[in-house]
């Protein structure tokens, strides 16, 4: 007989004492090839107020679309890219991290996913994490991505970062927990 997964509980308001030792806002170390970029944004609650006590965790593939994990059977070619980030927001609800643009991820059966970052979001008030994704603007493969295809067209923009007019290698992506612009979250 199988047992049940332990229930999730909130990280609470003071999670940063437990999380800060593993903060990682620059994921580019060891990345080798690939375009470096900065992702900036804010986390906003249902009143449009910034959330000052949230933390994002990032998981992503390298520039060739490979994950540093044994279940990605493809060989990592001399590339120690790790792909994990832990990014707290500041008191104004703003976050910022540097990373390498991931390649498209090809499944063993040949199905391709457009380049994306997996995001876990934790904060006081969330009894379990929220899961979402960041996709890249003007990416031809977004049109055939198997996950974006499940998202109503009117809400897809919440998952796609916007270019920053002020800086060529910066992308903007905000999290709206509620409201007209509510970010798409996933159940997995």
């Amino acid at each position, binding site marked *: 007989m199988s*047992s049940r997964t332990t229930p*999730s509980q909130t990280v609470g308001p003071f999670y940063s004492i437990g999380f800060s030792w593993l903060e990682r806002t620059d994921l580019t170390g060891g990345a080798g090839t690939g375009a470096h970029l900065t992702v900036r944004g804010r986390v906003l609650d249902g009143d449009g107020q910034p959330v000052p006590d949230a933390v994002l965790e990032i*998981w992503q593939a390298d520039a060739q679309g490979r994950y540093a994990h044994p279940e990605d059977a493809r060989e990592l070619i001399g590339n120690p890219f790790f792909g994990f980030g832990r990014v707290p927001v500041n008191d104004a609800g703003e976050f910022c991290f540097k990373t390498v643009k991931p390649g498209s991820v090809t499944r063993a059966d040949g199905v391709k996913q457009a380049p994306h970052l997996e995001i876990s979001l934790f904060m006081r008030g969330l009894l379990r994490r929220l899961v979402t994704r960041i996709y890249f603007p003007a990416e031809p493969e977004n049109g055939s991505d198997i996950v974006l295809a499940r998202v109503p067209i009117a*809400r897809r923009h919440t998952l796609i970062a916007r270019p920053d007019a002020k800086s060529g290698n910066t992308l903007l992506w905000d999290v709206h927990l509620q409201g007209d612009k509510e970010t798409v979250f996933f159940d997995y």
Partner: protein
Amino acid sequence: MQPLRGYRKALPGTQPEYLHPPYRSSARRAPTQPPISLPDTLSEITGPIFPKDIVGAKACDLTRQGRTEPLGERIIVTGKVMDEDGRPVRESLVEIWQANAAGRYLHKWDQHDAPLDPNFIGVGQAFTDEEGRYRFMTIRPGAYPWKNHANAWRPQHIHFSLFGPAFATRLVTQMYFPGDPLLEFDPIFNSVSDEAARNSLISRFDWDPTTPEIALGFRFDIILRGRNATPMESK
């Protein structure tokens, strides 16, 4: 080529809903739209596997992080991390954090009028062993007041954060203590509607780790998601 083997979804009631009105801060932070179901992809069945050397040897002993021993009741917290099919989760990172014996966190926003202990930081890390076991030495945390409702008090608890083998298995939870009279009034503990699942958050006193002249032992086993039995074809 092998199809992907995904992870099983939670049974109804065994995980909290995002919106749980008795927990006041969920009201403006819980999404209002239903989440969209993800297909099985490589992005969720992979995840960070941390090298063991990121954690120092003393990180699992929260009573040895100051100049001298912290105040409070020394306890040993230990257990096994397994998946839903009872397989041990090996060599996997476990993080904990908690209030001190007086119910105060070492955090700039904690305004509870209780003393900080200069010898207690309240943060630890460990890796599970080959059988999925972890072990911490710490101080029993105090209960503390919070502003959720009139005369609200959190039961004694230790925060746990686990990664497991994949993005899909990431879990942050809280461990409670047996017989705590505050549990029945706590909206966070009671956000889990399934009684058996809820009670699995309560550790149990255990003679086995209890060490003569040193500390009482509490056992807290943690179950991470299991995998689908047969590879699922998904689009």
